[in-house]
C-alpha cells in the first residue's frame, strides 16, 4: 500500500478535502474520488489531451499530474464549463452547432484547452486554432467542426456574450 496525504482542492468552485494515495493521478482522483467522470482518459501517457483540465486557469494533463500536486489549487473540469443547468457556454453551443463532436470522448479536453486559448487569444485565425488543439487527438471529426466552432465561439465571446 502506498503512502497517503491529505489534500485540499477547489474544483469548479467547490472545496474538497480528501486523503489520497500519493501515487494516484489527478485524473483518477477527479473521476473516482470526486465522481467527476466528465474528464476522460484516452492514453494515460500525455499525448491525446482527453484528460485536459485547468489548474489555476492553465490547461494541464490530469493523467500526468498527481493528485497531491494539485493540493491547494483551483481546478476546473468540463462539469464546470456550462453557466447553469439549462444553459451552455458559447463554446459548447458552437461545438454542437458546428458538429465539433461525434462520440464526444475527446470533447472535454478540447473544451478546456480551447477555453484557455480563447481567453488568451480572443481573435484567433484558423491556423492559430489548429495549433492550439494540435495536442488533442480526435479520431472522429477530422477537427474541422472543432475549428469552426472555436472561430464562431471567439466571435460570440468578443461580441460580449456571457462567458
Amino acid at each position, binding site marked *: 500500500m502506498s503512502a497517503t496525504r491529505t489534500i485540499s482542492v477547489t474544483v469548479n468552485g467547490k472545496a474538497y478535502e480528501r486523503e489520497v494515495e500519493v501515487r494516484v493521478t489527478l485524473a483518477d482522483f477527479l473521476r473516482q474520488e470526486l465522481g467527476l*467522470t466528465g474528464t476522460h*482518459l*484516452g492514453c494515460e501517457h500525455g499525448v491525446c489531451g482527453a484528460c485536459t483540465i485547468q489548474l489555476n486557469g492553465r490547461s494541464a494533463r490530469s493523467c500526468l499530474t498527481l493528485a497531491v500536486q494539485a493540493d491547494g489549487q483551483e481546478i476546473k473540469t468540463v462539469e464546470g464549463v456550462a453557466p447553469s443547468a439549462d444553459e451552455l457556454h458559447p463554446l459548447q453551443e458552437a461545438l454542437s452547432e458546428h458538429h465539433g*463532436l*461525434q*462520440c464526444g470522448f475527446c470533447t472535454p479536453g478540447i473544451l478546456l484547452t480551447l477555453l484557455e486559448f480563447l481567453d488568451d487569444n480572443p481573435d484567433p485565425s484558423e491556423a492559430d486554432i489548429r495549433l492550439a488543439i494540435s495536442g488533442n487527438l480526435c*479520431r472522429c471529426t477530422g477537427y*474541422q467542426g472543432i475549428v469552426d466552432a472555436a472561430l464562431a465561439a471567439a466571435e460570440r465571446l468578443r461580441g460580449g456574450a456571457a462567458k
Partner: protein
Amino acid sequence: MNMTMTVIGKPMLRLEDPRLLRGEARFIDDIKLANMAEAAFVRSPNGHALIKGIDASAALALPGVMAVLTLDDLRPHLSGEHLVVGLPSEAYKQDRNRPALCRDEAVYVGEPVAVVVAENRYIAEDAVDLVAVDYDILPAASDCRAALAEGAPPVHRDGADNLLAEFDMEYGDVDAAFAGAAHVFGESFWQHRGGGHSIECRGMVADYDKPTDKLVLWNSTQMAHSSLRVLVEMLGRDENRVRVVTPDIGGGFGPKLVIYQEEVVVSIASIVLGRPVKWIEDRREHFMTSTQERDQYWEVEIAVDDAGGIRGIRGSIVHDHGAYTARGINLPQNSGETLPGPYVVPAYRMNVRLALTNKVPVTPVRGAGHPQACFAMERMLDRVARELGLDRAEVRRRNLIPAESMPYTKPLKSRSGAPIVLDSGDFPASQQAALDKADWSGFGARQQAALEDGRYIGIGVANFVKGTGRGPFEEVTVRIGASGRVQVYTGAAAIGQGTETMLAQIVAEELGGEVANITVTTGDTARNSLGIGTSNSRVTVVAGSSAHAAARKVRDKALLVASHLLELPVEELEIVGAEIRAKGADERRKNVWIALADVANAVAGTPGYALPGGVEPGLEATERLLFDAMPYVNGTAVAEVEVDPHTGGVEILSYKMTHDCGRMINPMIVHGQVIGGAAHGIGNALFEWMQYDAMAQPLTTNYADYLLVTATELPRIEVVHTETPSPLNDLGVKGVGECGVIPAAAVLASAIEDALTPFGVRIARAPITPPDILALIRAA
C-alpha cells in the same frame, strides 16, 4: 417517400450533444457499481512462446488482490474454451479460434494469459507484475509474405504451415483479355492501415447477481447481441440470465465489432467472485490487443487497349491475418471484390491468400479493405495514363461506368451469394464535379509557376464506390406508452455517429414531427430480441429502414384508435407533436384533439374493458426489414499537395471530394462523417504504421511512436454532396460511416507522385512517410 418531409433532411442539432458537452454522458469507465472490483490482465510479452508454468503466489499475497485466474480456473464455468466467431467460408484451411486465456502456448504479444482481480486498478496492475510466467520462446512469424514461405516458423506449434485461407475471385475470360491486349502493365504494392484508435479504449463491467443468477455485461462494443451470443454459448447460460448493455461509446472504428476474450473472462471473474468486476483497456493494450488492419501485398497487372480502355485485371494479394480468426476472411474479400470499383472491367481474376502471423488478429478498421483496393486500382490507372501519355482524369473517364448503365451488375458474388449490383449514382458526373471544383484543368499552369519558384506541387484524383448497409436486418421497436413520448429501441450500438438523432428524425417524420418527443435506446439486448450491430456503414440503411416502417405502423394504428375515440375519419386526423388533432383551421375543430399518451393508454388495456375499435393491444411495432443487395455510395477525391524534396514533408494544399450517399437524413451529420473519414484516411496515407520487429514484437505502442493525424496536418476538407436516392429502400438512403476514408491514400499517392514528376518517383506503398519519400527521391 413524399416530397413534403419536414424532419428528414434537416441539419438538426444532435440529441446526443448536451450530455456530452456537459461531461454528463456515461461511458464505460464512468460506471461505478457498489462493491466493484477491477481487473488487469497478465499478457504474453512474446510473439510466440510455450507457457510452462504460471506462479501467482506472490500476486495473491498482495493485500487487496482477490483472485488470479488462469484457463484452468475458468474451465468449470466454460462450456467451450474457444471463441468461435469466424464468418462462415469454404476458404478456410485451418480453424484458428482464440482460447479465452492461453492454454500452454501464446501466439501474439498481448495475448491474455491470466487475469488479476483486485480492489482497484492500481493494485491489480501491481499484482500483474508479480505473476511469474515461465515462457519458452519459440520462433515467430512476423511478415506475412515470409510466413507463407517454405520453412517459415509455424505461428501455431501444431500447424503444418501458415496458410489460413485461400480463394480466387474471377469473372470473364481473363487470359484472352490479356493475350489480345495492346498493353499490359504490372505493379507491386505494399499497403498498411493500422489500428482503430477510438479515443476511448475498450472496456466492460460485468455484474453477476447471485440471488437472481443474472449476469449483466456493460460493454463498450459495437455488437451487443453478438457479445450476448458468445457469452450464452461459452458460459452455457440461458439468454434470460445474460444481458449485454452498451453505454455511451467513445468511438468504434471497427475493432469494437469484434468479440474479445476479455468479455468472457471478466464475466466469469464476476461470477466467481460474486461481485461486479470492471476492466478498462489502457492505450498500450489497445495497441497490442485490439484488432487492427495491417499489411497487404499486392501483385497486379492491367491489360488495356491503345485508348486506355481496360480489358482485364489479374493479380494476387497476400493478407496479414494475425494469429487467430477474430472475424473472418472478409477483409481481403472486400479488397478483391471492390477492386474493379466504379470502372468497367470486363475480365478479372484475383487470388487471395491469408497468412497467419504471430500478431494480434486483423479485422476491419473503418473502410475495411476498400482503401487498399482503391489504392491498387487508382495507382494502376495512373500508370496507364503515364504510359499512354493521357491525362489521368481522362483515362478514368473512359473507364467509369456510365450513368445510363445503372443499375450495373458485376458478375462477382458478394459474401451473401448475391451478385454485386451497383444500384445507383452518376460516376462520371461525380468525377467531373470534383475536377471542376479543384480546377484540374488549370493545374498545369499552377504547377509550372510553382516549379519556377522551386516548389514541387502535384495534384491527384481517385474515384471509389463502397457497398453499405450490409444485411440481413436490424431490429427496431417503436413504442408509445403512458408518457406519450415515442420510445425507439434498436440492438445496434451508437458509437458516435449520431444514431440517436438519425433514428429520431426518421421516426419523428411519421410521429408528430418533433425529435424532442423521441427517446432512442441503442445496443441493449434486454430491449431487442434480435440484433446484429453497428458495422459496415449499415445502421442508417438497415435500422433506419426498420425504424421508418415501424413508425408508420404505429402512426397508422394511433390514427385508427384516435378516429374511434374522436369519432372522426382517419383522413381528417394528423399527429402534431405529442397530440393527434383534427386537420384544418376550422375554429370548431381546434379543440378536437387527443394526446398520444391517451391513445396509448386506451390500447394498453383496462381489466374487463374491450379495446377501442377492436384493435390489437399496444401502441407499438417491431420491424426487421430484410436486405440483401447493398446500396453503393460513390465519390471522387481530388487533392493538391506540396512536397519538400529536402525533408520529404508533404503539405496538403487542398482536399476536395464529391460524395453521393443517397438521401441524407441529417446533412450535418453526413458531412461530419465524410470529413472525419477523410481525416482518418489522410492519417493512414501519411502517418499511421503499426510496426513490428522480426520476432513480431510491436514497436509502436504509444502516440509518440504511432502517429495519429492532428489538426495542424489537415487542410480544410471540402465536400460536395449529391443525393441520388437508392432504389433499394423506401428512404433512399445509403450508408456513410466509412466512405470518406476510402480514396485518401490513393489520391495522395497520385498527387505526391505528380509533385515529384521531375524526380521520376513512383509510389507503390502506403503509408507514404517523409523518410520513404526521401529514399524514393534518392533511388530515382
